[in-house]
């Protein structure tokens, strides 16, 4: 009686929707909210390997933060992270946008070639990292070989082990990795612009460039905002490539916040330090996420 009532409630009543919502909320609480709050809490505590098992740990106030700011590697890593995020997104976006526009022209085989681009996207970042490591290898790398064959360089460029190049090599690999995602999102955005709007602009006297500047760009505005926001989030998450290519080296030349946080947490077991970096990154991501949500809302208002 009770059981059949429950089944009926689930099937016919509000029970089904309710169950879905509860499941989603539970999932968020366990797998998103808890680790997030736990990380923030740890950034205000003294945590090391031996207090890892307990929750009650000495309160550290802001000392984790001040300690972090005073480390000699803090400024270079923040700077590296900014360069990493900015350059990655700038190039992922422009190249992705150019490719999206390119594939919008329906030339024979365009769908297949576009599909090939996606192949790069489904590769795990660690695999991509391994491939790029062969490309960038200093002594026997593909890139050096190609450049030397073309007569562009004489000696080797140590893409990964020269502090002057390491960060940019990781950025190049990350740009490559992010282009398909950017291209697909932007393709979807472009496909959402009705063709007759372009025709109307053409009739109104707009040439190709004017159509791009006055129709495509403004109508893509919300999509671009969303792509940039997601790009910031994904780029700040990009751990695997750094791990596979340089481990932040040499001498922190290519170290970025997300990798530093991991190094502290799991290599030197300065767990509160790692949590502090992570917390600051969370704050940044929240700001970006708010911008993202806003821009999605604006997109729906068209």
């Amino acid at each position, binding site marked *: 009686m009770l059981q059949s009532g429950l089944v009926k409630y689930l099937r016919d009543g509000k029970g089904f929707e309710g169950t879905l919502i509860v499941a989603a909320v539970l999932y968020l609480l366990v797998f998103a909210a808890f680790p997030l709050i736990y990380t923030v809490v740890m950034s205000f505590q003294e945590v090391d*390997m*031996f207090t890892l098992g307990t929750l009650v740990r000495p309160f550290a106030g802001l000392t984790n933060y001040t300690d972090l700011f005073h480390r000699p590697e803090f400024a270079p890593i923040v700077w590296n992270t900014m360069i990493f995020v900015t350059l990655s997104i700038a190039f992922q976006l422009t190249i992705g946008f150019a490719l999206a526009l390119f594939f919008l022209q329906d030339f024979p085989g365009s769908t297949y070639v576009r599909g090939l681009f996606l192949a790069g996207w489904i590769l795990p970042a660690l695999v991509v990292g391994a491939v790029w490591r062969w490309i960038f*290898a*200093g*002594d*026997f790398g593909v890139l050096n070989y190609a450049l030397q064959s073309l007569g562009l360089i004489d000696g080797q460029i*140590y893409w*990964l*082990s*020269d*502090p002057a190049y*390491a960060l940019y090599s990781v950025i190049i690999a990350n740009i490559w990795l992010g282009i398909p995602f950017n291209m697909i999102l932007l393709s979807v955005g472009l496909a959402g612009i009705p063709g007759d709007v372009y025709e109307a602009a053409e009739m109104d006297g707009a040439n190709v460039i004017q159509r791009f500047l006055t129709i495509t760009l403004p109508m893509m505005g919300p999509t671009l905002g969303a792509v940039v926001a997601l790009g910031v989030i994904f780029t700040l998450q990009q751990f695997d490539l750094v791990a596979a*290519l*340089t*481990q*932040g*080296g*040499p*001498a*922190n*030349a290519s170290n970025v916040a997300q990798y530093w946080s991991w190094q502290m947490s799991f*290599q*030197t*077991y*300065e767990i509160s330090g790692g949590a502090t970096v992570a917390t600051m990154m969370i704050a940044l991501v929240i700001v970006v996420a708010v911008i993202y949500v806003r821009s999605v809302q604006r997109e729906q208002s068209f």
Partner: protein
Amino acid sequence: MATEESTFQFLPWAQSAGGDFNAINTDGSVRALQFWQKLVDDKVATPEVLVLNQPDLGSQFVAGNIGMIVTGCWELPRFAKEVKFDWRVALMPIEKAGAPRASALGELAYAVPRTSAHPDEAFKFLEYIYAQSSRDWNEYGWLPLDQTATPKDPKWPEAYAVFAEQMKYARGRGPSPVWPKVSKAIQTAIQDTLTHKTDAKTALDTAQSTIDGLIK
């Protein structure tokens, strides 16, 4: 590369020149690091050592791209199978005749937590592991710490002789509850020196003061 491996690789050089992890800025340690720096500067060693790990470098050796490698006996099974040229094993070099020899132990340190509910079982388990030591060499290319556990009829007898000799000079790293941070300080010094961010002396002085602060 900037991991425990680089500390592992460097310590014997420092130790053989009279330094150690808690005396990392002695003249000997500085000379050892300067020697490393010179190897890279003169292109005797590839700058890739800054980012490549031990297995990567081992692969380069297998491929014939590098002619000399400082590594452990655990690479023997692979090298024996894959290296296509004539190669030998030698003792780690020392700075000058009569200097102490040194090498690093790759073995793990086992710990039984104080709060463990089954300490006796844990010890039994450890005893079992060590009782199997004589299988290490032939089956895994490991040289057991336990000097009494000699393998029957060792494979690669020449290499075994060298490693067994080298083992006499082996030292553990630490152990210390703050070892990861000690190691990190040494790694940083190595990376900073090899990339010419600072000179060897300054880098090791910095490492020394960090380490002093850690182990008091």
